[in-house]
């Protein structure tokens, strides 16, 4: 179990100035769950990841992992964690085998145990025949797999992943996430993954949405999106000013809540016919209307705009 209570974190900016990256953050991640921490760039995800992985130390607030304080029991906690960073922590001048060997040495693994684990893990990653290859020759997707195998070699109870699909093409991204899905089914392991891609977070058991260092919402993806109803209407315009115009018209005439994101409008819980009638007067201002299930991204836009308005 990961428990975070009233966590604050500040970065020094100038001599006496500091910028708050985490603001009174409270979060709980239950054992053996796949928890996705999402939010836009600059929301505090990487700072929290840096603290959880032991790279940065908090001054106030408390973090415990399996009941152990993260500051006082660093060595014990590091043994329990596997970490996958945004850019693979691999030496490109060394072979896969040499990189795994270094990891084994750093985590105090006996050579026979390392070999056994490699035999087990390389079979499901398609890397078995590539052990002698230099990491520098691998594709981005393959390097990610190597990073994942490396992070799991010492059989951590908790797997931390910081935007692990960053820079991958859609195919490699899907493959990587499928691999994570298989892992959570096969092993008793808590997975905490950060991602700024909301669609990725929807694959998790639980999601936390961060914004400006605070937790805006958390729960299962279904629970969270349910807050916006079962369906929502998306109106796509060609220009931002058209979207602004339509937003004003719709809000004034019907009182319906409308959220805008650039040239796109999102309208929740509305009768399509009413909407069609309204928009028939302004058909030249939009390109298409679609009805779709709300996503986490919709929820994020909903909560942040509501916050700003209030």
């Amino acid at each position, binding site marked *: 179990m990961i428990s975070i209570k009233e966590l*604050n*974190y*500040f*970065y*020094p900016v100038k001599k006496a100035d*500091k910028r708050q990256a985490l603001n009174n953050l409270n979060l709980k991640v239950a054992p053996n769950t796949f928890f996705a921490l999402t939010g836009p760039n600059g929301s505090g995800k990487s700072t929290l990841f*840096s603290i959880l*992985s*032991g*790279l*940065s*130390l*908090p*001054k*106030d607030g408390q973090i415990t992992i399996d009941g152990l304080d993260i500051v006082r029991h660093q*060595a014990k906690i*590091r*043994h329990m*964690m596997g*970490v996958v*960073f*945004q*850019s*693979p*922590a*691999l*030496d*490109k*001048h*060394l072979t896969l085998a*040499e990189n795994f*060997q*270094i*990891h084994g*040495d*750093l*985590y*105090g693994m006996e050579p026979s145990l390392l070999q056994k684990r490699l035999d087990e893990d390389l079979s499901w990653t398609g890397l078995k025949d590539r052990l002698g290859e230099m990491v520098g020759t691998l594709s981005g997707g393959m390097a990610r797999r190597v990073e994942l195998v*490396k992070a799991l070699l010492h059989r951590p109870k908790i797997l931390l992943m910081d935007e692990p699909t960053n820079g991958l093409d859609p195919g490699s991204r899907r493959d990587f996430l499928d691999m994570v899905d298989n892992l959570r089914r096969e092993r008793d392991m808590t997975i905490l993954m950060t991602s700024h891609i909301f669609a990725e977070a929807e694959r998790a058991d639980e999601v936390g949405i961060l914004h400006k260092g605070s937790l805006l919402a958390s729960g299962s993806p279904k629970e969270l999106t349910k807050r916006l109803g079962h369906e929502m209407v998306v109106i796509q315009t060609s220009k931002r000013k058209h979207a602004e115009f339509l937003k004003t018209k719709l809000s004034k005439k019907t009182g319906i809540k409308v959220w805008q994101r650039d040239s796109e409008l999102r309208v929740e819980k509305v009768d399509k016919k009413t909407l069609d009638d309204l928009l028939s007067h302004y058909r030249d201002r939009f390109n298409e209307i679609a009805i779709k299930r709300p996503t986490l991204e919709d929820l994020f836009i909903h909560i942040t705009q509501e916050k700003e308005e209030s």
Partner: protein
Amino acid sequence: MVNGVISMAKRELVRFFRQGHRVVGSIAQPIIFWLFLGSGFGASFQAPGLEGVSYTEYFFPGILLMVVLFSGIFSTITVIEDRNQGLLQGILVAPVPRIAIVFGKVIGAMVIGLLQAFLLLLTIPFLAIEPGFAGILMVILGLIIAALGFTALGFLIAWNMESTSGFHAIMSVFLLPLWMLSGAMFPMTQAPVWLEWLMFLNPVSHALLLIRMPLYQPISELLTSSQYIIAFIVAIIWAVGCLMLALSRVNRQQCSA
């Protein structure tokens, strides 16, 4: 922790030997310096007390020192590359104490530097000096202390730098002058008084004495020579001091402001 140190040191060696240009460069550069400067200054080199000593011979200990200096610099510059590529983060989150990173890097760089220096030591029979086996061992001891000092100092600087270009700037204005003002290129006695003082205060000058003196004096004389003993103490304080500073810096974790 020992496995972690060995692993990190081994990594330095594997990377070095796998980068052919680095191997060629690190061996060719000191030899080119030695031969060209030795030949160029040979005719005009005259220093009191060093009559009969050719510049090639005088410059030899300085070249040995240069080898360990460059080895230390090029090995520790990888700290910045490791950080920029994300590799360092992976090591920092491991349960091994952070000092293992310093020891691993320093030992790896020292071994690389010493291997190159050993190659140069093979040229001793071609010079007009006969240090003997014990003398060679004392030279190696001096090289080990110098290598430790330079690598720890390089590590300390690299840990605080964000770019390799910044490190090169520090190398040009700080590390290279330390070597130049060590007596490697010209004797202290030939320098103006202010420079002589600078050279005396430079700990690298003392490290150089630990390499130069055993080439000419038997071990029994060295152990009773106050100049050698002072040089030994100063060089050890410098090398161990740099190592301690590097260890302390690496142990400092990033903390909330």
